[in-house]
């Protein structure tokens, strides 16, 4: 495992983000004086009904398994289920392509991220989190704020503008994915950023889908 990844995980532990236990980075087990406890992670989400909770490499195969699971679990409510599915697909792809955290197994490099779907009486809540380069994270939050400030019709206009742009080297900022997520959910994007080291921040994004 590369040194850079170890550094990321270490500072994650040292920050107040201890609830995000890395299942994939075995460096935490090297120091056996620190016992691995998933209790905080468990407590954090236990007040809501968890549909999916995943932290680890986000690969096309994992995505396909989780998306199939979403479809079957939400089959009773096809309207909201379709929305949760579409939002999951878009945001999991963001992690797949853009997460700053990578893990290598058998010479295959995968992006790491966290995906969480919970349910309350009135809504489904989709959340995801991943490391993002510090240089890029502000831009990401800014686009989210722009998206949140727009009325639906203006958001659709922005989507069309973005879609007509030629493919950039990296679809930064107000990428069409986030706009699509906001349009599909019909609710604002909730974002949170915690800087974990000089290089990266942990970016959380959460969105509600009404039942």
């Amino acid at each position, binding site marked *: 495992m590369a040194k850079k990844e170890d550094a990321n995980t270490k500072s994650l532990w040292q920050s107040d983000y201890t609830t995000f236990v890395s299942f994939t980075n075995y460096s935490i087990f090297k120091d056996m004086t620190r016992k691995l406890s998933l209790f905080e992670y468990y407590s954090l989400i236990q007040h809501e009904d968890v549909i999916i909770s995943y932290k680890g490499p986000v690969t096309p195969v994992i995505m396909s398994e989780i998306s199939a699971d979403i479809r079957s679990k939400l089959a009773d409510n096809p309207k909201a289920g379709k929305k949760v599915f579409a939002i999951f697909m878009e945001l999991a792809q963001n992690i797949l392509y853009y997460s700053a955290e990578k893990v290598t197994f058998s010479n295959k490099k995968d992006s790491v991220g966290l995906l969480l779907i919970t349910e309350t009486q009135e809504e489904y809540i989709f959340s995801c989190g991943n490391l993002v380069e510090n240089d890029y994270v502000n831009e990401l939050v800014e686009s989210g704020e722009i998206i949140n400030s727009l009325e639906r019709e203006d958001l659709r206009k922005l989507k069309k503008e973005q*879609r007509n742009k030629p*493919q950039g080297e990296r679809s930064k900022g107000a990428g069409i994915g986030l706009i699509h997520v906001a*349009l599909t959910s019909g609710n604002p994007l909730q974002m949170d950023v915690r800087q974990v080291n000089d290089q990266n921040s942990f970016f959380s994004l959460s969105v509600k889908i009404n039942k």
Partner: protein
Amino acid sequence: MSEQTLENLEIEGEKGTFFTPSVKFNAETGVCSLEGESYLEDTWEFYDKLLVWLQKYAETGKPLTFDFKLTYFNTSSSKGILDLLKQIKNYEDQGGEIQVNWYHPEDDEDNVEEAEDFKDDTGLEINLIPY
């Protein structure tokens, strides 16, 4: 007009790790359909194949009917779909006789909104047909 005969283009729909929509482009009748779900490993490569075929078909000057019946497509695919519609609009502008039908599940408002945005974006007449 091209002397070479244009072959039909058929791609079987598939739902595995990725979702390939089913493609049936008929060079004889000019009836083309794109159906199912679109989330691809290489979106550009897939839609480029369809665009090349349409370009060649347009050279025949024959009428074109395009049926979209998509239940899910990711935002990358939506760029590919937009390119297809732009190509169809191009053909219409050159005098091609075209008809575009967009089939959507009756209660799927998001799907309808997508179609309206495509309409807006291309200036094409798109018939919205619920099923």
